[in-house]
């Protein structure tokens, strides 16, 4: 694809990114600080949803344990920041640890030609293993450098600081800016990636792995590639999550979070990047507002939403809405054309008289 058509293909991505930038600039002016801190957590989860949207929606790989990389990112950041005494390298460490772990797990899965269902099972199992492992690290002997792992209580995460001054910690409001910028950048990066040759081959493999192989593409390498990249993005999400919450606990690896990630992508729509992001914000706020009352159980509502979507909107929000738009436009153009034809015919008839 040449640069002109890449830009054309990415136009919707840029539009949503621009909306994101406007939101980033204006939200802190109008929203309360408490909401902004909460938003940072939601942004982190949105980055996590984006990573699954990439690997599942485009790569066709149902990774049930995307939170494994998310949690590893959060732990790697926290441990790194405590030991390095600054956050900059810790962020890179978080992304690298998540991606490297995915590369190792992915190597065995993809080069071992593990089929789709087992892939989901394996990734989920890996997540739950990490959950049990990290829960058992409560003793003083479980220490990495200066960081006590703390078992199920977790570790307090140092906030982000300025890259050139490790003592200049960012205020929650500033962390919000960084998180939002990271979300926008990750979104544009993912949007660009799917227009590249690599991204298009990944989509082709999702559509028909045999055909892709018969064209000479090594499906295993492409799957491993997109799996690793998406894990890196999930690791980045972990960084902002523990920044938003202020600590990291084994719950990041929990079944609840693993399932929630899948729900965001199903509701938002596979095959789009913006859908799962918006669905994450929507469901995050729904859960937050439900948390304030006692009549309805939170999980019950989430379950109902999932069932409704699977049954009634199986493709998710974004693809369904995009369809309405194109159909509406086509319908309008068609109607105009028909009207013009009718007019012409009427004109011809009059001329014939």
């Amino acid at each position, binding site marked *: *694809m*040449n640069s002109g058509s890449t830009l054309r293909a990415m136009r919707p991505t840029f539009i949503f990114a621009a909306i994101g930038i406007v939101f980033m600039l204006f939200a802190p002016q109008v929203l309360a600080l408490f909401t902004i801190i909460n938003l940072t957590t939601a942004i982190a989860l949105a980055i996590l949803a984006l990573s699954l949207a990439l690997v599942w929606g485009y790569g066709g790989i149902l990774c049930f344990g995307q939170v494994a990389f998310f949690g590893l990112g959060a732990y790697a950041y926290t441990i790194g920041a405590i030991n390095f005494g600054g956050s900059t390298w810790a962020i890179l460490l978080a992304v690298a640890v998540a991606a490297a772990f995915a590369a190792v797990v992915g190597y065995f899965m993809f080069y071992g030609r593990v089929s789709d269902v087992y892939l989901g099972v394996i990734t989920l199992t890996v997540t739950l293993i990490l959950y049990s492992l990290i829960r058992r690290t409560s003793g003083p002997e479980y220490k990495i450098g200066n960081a006590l792992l703390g078992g199920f209580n977790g570790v307090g995460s140092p906030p982000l600081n300025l890259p050139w001054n490790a003592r200049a910690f960012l205020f929650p409001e500033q962390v919000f800016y960084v998180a939002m910028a990271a979300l926008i950048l990750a979104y544009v990066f993912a949007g660009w990636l799917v227009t590249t*040759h690599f991204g*298009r*081959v990944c*989509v*082709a493999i*999702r*559509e*028909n792995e*045999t*055909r*892709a*192989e*018969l*064209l*000479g*593409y*090594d*499906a295993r390498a492409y799957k491993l590639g997109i799996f690793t990249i998406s894990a890196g993005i999930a690791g980045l999400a972990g960084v902002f999550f523990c920044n938003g919450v202020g600590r990291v606990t084994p719950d990041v690896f929990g079944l609840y979070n693993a399932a929630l990630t899948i729900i965001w992508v199903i509701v938002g729509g596979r095959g789009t990047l913006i859908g799962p992001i918006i669905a994450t914000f929507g469901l995050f706020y729904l859960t937050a507002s439900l948390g304030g009352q006692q009549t309805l159980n939170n999980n019950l509502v989430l379950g109902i939403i999932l069932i409704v979507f699977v049954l009634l909107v199986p493709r998710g929000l974004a693809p369904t809405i995009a369809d309405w738009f194109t159909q509406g436009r086509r319908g309008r153009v068609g109607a105009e054309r028909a009207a013009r034809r009718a007019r012409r015919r009427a004109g011809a008839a009059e001329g014939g008289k």
Partner: protein
Amino acid sequence: MKKRAAETVVETRGLCMHFGGVRAVDQVDFALEDRELRCLIGPNGAGKSTFFKCLTGQLTPTAGEITIRGTPVAGAQSHEIASLGVGIKTQVPNVFDGLTAEENIWLSARRWHGGARARTLTAETIERLRLGEIRRSLVGRLAHGQRQWVELGMVVAAEPWLVLLDEPAAGMTHEETARTAELILEINRTAALIVVEHDMQFIRMISRRVTLFHEGRILMEDTMDAISSDRRAREVYLGHRA
């Protein structure tokens, strides 16, 4: 140096593919020369599709050797065989249903060429196969014959020097079949071909040399005319038709 006219490009020696006790392919010695167009025929279960799948890396043979231009490929992955410059079309249309016809062909062209060349090659292929009208349609929504053509387009766009086609005319109308035959002869100008086919009329349109499979072995190898007049061949295959 000028290439010898009769270079062997595909060769199998003692190729066997057994499924439990079933000898789907049994001790097959086969050779294809450069620029040759060879048809594989045989009754159902004769082993020609299994043989084809061994050649394309979809099955790992139980025993025996396969070489493509001197490279041993028995048990190689499909993408490795394709990477030798082999274009493959399988029996069941294997296409990217959720993508447009154009994207399907581009993915094939782009595997071997840079961005600009891949784009022109895609456009040329679309023109050559007369897919212009459907190029923006999702392949999953096309008719069966059109899907076959998109797949042929993918094979052609890679500019292969060896083409393996499994039932390329299956489910096509007469007109489509005739055009497919034309295309195969055109491909043959630059590439060697192995075509597995059931449709006798189609084979008569394209065939030079035909290999007849029977019970996992090669029964005979000759022109279509010679095979149709051979008593043994008529018994195993053509008897109930003629």
